[in-house]
C-alpha cells in the first residue's frame, strides 16, 4: 500500500505487521531501522509526526516507536493524536532528553515503554518483540523500563 506525504513523497507500507519509527534525525532513524530489521520485523521510517500520522491513518502499524523532541509536533503530541483514533496501539518513546526537566514531563499511560538514549538494545528489542506478538489491550503503562 502506498502513502503520499508532503515531505517525503510516496512511501510504500509493508504488507504485514510493521513497526513505525518516527525520528527527525537521519543519523538516528537509519540505524534504528537496521536494528528493527535485525530483530526480524518490517518497519517504516518517518521524519515527522505528520508523516507518521499519514501512515497510521492509511494502515496502522503494530507498534509505534517515536522520538520525543521533533520540529512541529513532539512525541507526546503525536502519541495523543494516535491514542484518539487507536486507543490500544502501543507507543514506545525513545529520547535523549532529560525527562526530569519540567518542560518534558511525560503523562502517565501515554507510552507503553520509555527508553533513554543511548538505548539498552537488548531490552528495547525485547519490548518490540513482545508488542509485535501481543499488542496491549489496556492503558496500563506497563513495560516501562
Amino acid at each position, binding site marked *: 500500500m502506498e502513502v503520499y506525504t508532503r515531505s517525503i513523497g510516496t512511501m510504500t507500507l509493508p504488507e504485514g505487521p510493521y513497526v513505525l519509527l518516527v525520528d527527525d*534525525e537521519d*543519523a*538516528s532513524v*537509519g*540505524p*534504528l531501522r*537496521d*536494528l528493527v530489521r*535485525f530483530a526480524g520485523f518490517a518497519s517504516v521510517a518517518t521524519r515527522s509526526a505528520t508523516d507518521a500520522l499519514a501512515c497510521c491513518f492509511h494502515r496502522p502499524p503494530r507498534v509505534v516507536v517515536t522520538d520525543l*523532541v521533533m520540529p512541529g509536533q513532539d512525541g507526546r503530541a503525536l502519541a495523543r493524536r494516535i491514542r484518539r483514533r487507536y486507543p490500544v496501539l502501543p507507543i514506545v518513546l*525513545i529520547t*535523549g*532528553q*532529560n525527562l*526530569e*526537566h*519540567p518542560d518534558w514531563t511525560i503523562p502517565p499511560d501515554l507510552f507503553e515503554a520509555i527508553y*533513554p*538514549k*543511548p*538505548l539498552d*538494545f537488548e531490552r528495547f528489542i525485547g519490548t518490540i518483540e513482545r508488542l509485535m506478538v501481543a499488542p496491549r489491550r489496556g492503558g496500563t503503562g506497563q513495560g516501562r523500563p
Partner: protein
Amino acid sequence: MSQGSIENALAGQMLRLARDATLRGMVYDRLGDYCHQCRNRLNSLKLMIYLMTKQCADPTVGVWEEVNRHYRDLERKVEQIQTLCRPMTVSRVTLALDLLIDDRREAWTRTMIASGGSLEMIPPGSRTESKFDVERLGGALDALVEWRAGEVATGRPARLRWWVEQGVSHICWEEPVRPETGVRRAPTAGDVIWALPLLVRVVEAHGGDCRVEESGGWRLDVSWPTPNPAP
C-alpha cells in the same frame, strides 16, 4: 600555568557549579541541547557497534570488546556532564551502607592496587541502615576512588570508613600522608576535574554535605541525613 594548576582551577569551577543552583541552571540552559545531540549521536554509534558485534565472527570479538570499552568511557563522560548540570531527582532506598561498599570492595581495591596504592576498609561496629540513591551515590563514589587512586602516596594505604549515627550517614576517606607535589601516577585528568564536583552534587541532592581537609594528608567527610527507621 602548569597542567596541575589548570586542573585545580577547573576542578574549583566545577565545584562551584555543583554547589550553585543558579549557575547550574544557566549552564544547563546552554548545554541542554548540546547534551541532547550528544545522546542522539551516542545512540547511533552504540547501535552501529551493537549490530557489528552481533554480525561478527568469533576472531574479532576482542576488537569489538575494546571498541565497546572506549564507547562506554565516552558515554560515561557525557553522563558526568549531565549529572552535574541537569535537575537531579534522587531515588532513595533503605539499604545498609555495608552492602553498597561490599558490592564495590573488589573493584575499588583493584583500582587502588593498579595505581600503586592500597585501600584499607574499616567496617563499622554497628548497623548501617541508611537511605540513599544507590546508583547515583555508588557512581559518584566510583569516580572518587578512580580519582584518588591516581593521587594517593605510593605504598601508603588510603582508609575508608562508614557508619550511621544519630540519624546521619557518614563516609570518610582518609589518606594519612600527602604524596609529593606534582606526583600523579594515573593520567586521568578528567577524574580530577569531575570526581569531587559529582560527589558534592549527588550528596547535596540528598540534603547532605562534603568537607575536604588537606592538612598533612587528605581527608574527605561525606554525610547526609538519614531518618531513624521506625521502631
